[in-house]
């Protein structure tokens, strides 16, 4: 209980120590450690990979014989439907997938936290309306919503990031709100209110820092969901045609009949890439959630 303390009027130094302690707890857990290792591996591939093995989208094959070639000494993971190197393409795709996942999550977190804070802290009708809006977004089926938005608004990387971000904040808002509801009745909040602090100050300075650890665990899980969403959207042909991601690679593999031609080297690398990075974030998020979630902590 002591190491995982998340709630209480702690000072900043205590909070940083608590955060370190929580990460240490997650590292000590076999599931959490496996997640951290998978993530370190992926980030290494995404950051260093394209520098060592740059991908040139224009380096297409010269003859039909260069197309969908199995792995060889020249092309370690074979070639794609245009005769390009799948290994280098996969490394380049890692960057786009991670970038979209992280930026979309940032939008989702900011929106979810803001709505959750507002809905939890404001008494009366405003909070109720915010919660109705949250419930509405929570109930909409995500994938059809993303498809509809992307189909109407367009297909650039920026649009995809925003679309995934604005469709995934509702669960965060709910989690934040329920935390805020219990926090705002605490004695230390009463105390600063008695001292004359404004609502905004109480929400930002005294409540938000205490909700942050839980938001953090949730963030890690939302990143996993965002990366999956980008891959799915791109696979369905709604990705950014100018930026290769794992999803667009699998879209090309699927629509060009690479699977029926037995091109496993085109099917496996981008797919395993998605599984590894999503699994990494899921394992870390699951572990952090178990450590930080007050309801689950007793287990």
């Amino acid at each position, binding site marked *: 209980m002591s190491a995982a303390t998340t709630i209480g009027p702690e000072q900043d130094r205590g909070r940083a120590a608590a955060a370190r302690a929580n990460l240490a707890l997650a590292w000590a857990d076999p599931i959490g450690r496996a997640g951290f290792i998978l993530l370190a591996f992926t980030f290494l591939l995404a950051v260093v990979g394209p520098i060592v093995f740059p991908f040139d989208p224009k380096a297409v094959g010269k003859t039909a014989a260069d197309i969908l070639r199995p792995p060889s000494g020249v092309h370690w993971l074979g070639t794609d439907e245009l005769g390009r190197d799948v290994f280098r393409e996969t490394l380049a795709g890692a960057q786009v997938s991670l970038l979209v996942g992280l930026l979309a999550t940032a939008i989702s977190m900011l929106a979810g936290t803001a709505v959750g804070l507002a809905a939890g802290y404001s008494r009366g009708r405003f909070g109720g309306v915010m919660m109705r809006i949250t419930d*509405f977004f929570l109930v909409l*089926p995500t994938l059809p919503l993303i498809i509809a938005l992307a189909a*109407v*608004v367009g297909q650039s990387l920026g649009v995809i990031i925003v679309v995934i971000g604005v469709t995934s904040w509702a669960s965060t808002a709910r989690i934040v709100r329920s935390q805020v509801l219990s926090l705002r009745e605490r004695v230390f909040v009463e105390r600063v209110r008695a001292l004359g602090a404004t609502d905004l100050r109480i929400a930002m300075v005294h409540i938000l820092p205490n909700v942050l650890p839980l938001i953090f665990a949730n963030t890690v899980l939302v990143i996993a969901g965002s990366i*999956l969403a980008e891959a799915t959207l791109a696979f369905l042909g709604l990705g950014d045609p100018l930026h290769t991601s794992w999803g667009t690679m699998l879209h090309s593999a699927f629509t060009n009949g690479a699977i029926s031609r037995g091109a496993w080297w085109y099917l496996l690398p981008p797919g395993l890439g998605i599984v590894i990075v999503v699994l990494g974030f899921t394992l870390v998020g*699951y572990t952090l959630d178990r450590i930080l979630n007050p309801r689950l902590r007793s287990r």
Partner: protein
Amino acid sequence: MGRVRYLGAKVAQVLMTLLAVATFNFLLFHVLPGDPIRLQARAGRLQPEDIARLKELYGLDLPLPQQYLVYLRDLVTGDLGTSFTFKKPVAEILAERIVNTVELLFLATVLVLVIGVMAGVLAAARRGTRSDAATVAVSLIFWSLPTFWTGLVLIFIAGVWLHLLPISGMTTPGAHFASPLAGFVDLLRHLVLPTITLILVDIGQFVLITRSSLVDVMTEDFILTARAKGLSPRTVLWRHGVRNAMLPVVTASGLYVALVIGGAIQVETVFSWPGMGSLIYDAVMRRDYPLIEASFLLFAVTVILVNFLSDLLYMVIDPRVRNA
């Protein structure tokens, strides 16, 4: 009395949500990026005089509030517009396709629920053992699988590589079956791979939710009481534990519908299953906006109604809500 009021509040809430979805849909497809004409112009090429004529045809020369009312009236009367590509009323196309999707999802859903809950109960009953840890790890891995890729891998293994099972469509094209039974077997063979895909990607969360809910319940005082009474461990687990652990699972089943709709879109696309999911994929590919709009609306309404049903089920099985 409390029950009637609870039911009334829920019905009112559902009606409000349905209206909100319809309004959202109207704003998204009719106001936000432009009107259906501009969307159509983007999909193909239109002359200015065509645009003017189409505007009148679609009622787009009317003021916006009036368009909204016309839109709502059309929805209520089941007029969902005409598909650009099929040149048929959208409602007619949806009616044909929805049966196939239900057929695909029914078996997968039953199996996901049964296997998922059983595995979760077994893991919780052996909490802390190696088999419990393995169940959690495998569930998390399944949870992280992209649905479409899982389908593609299964196609590769069972269809392309081993030539075991059909990988596309609902029936063997051009086949004539000696008996209805042979036709049914053919359909079942086409169902195998899509169903396995859906089970693999959706089962993890049911295992984890059942497990964590049951682990929670088993630490409660009344379990200790039941044990102290001398009831057998099995009775304590099933009659006292599992029964009380089912509430979060019912909630998850409501949310599962939203998930399985996403799964259906991907699985139907990958396996060319002629249902709602591949319909929305084709509609996106051909930029058939009336069809995208209506499919989205249908999916959203389905999710809202199923969540309503799961609320009702909650009322039946949870005495606290029942007597509130």
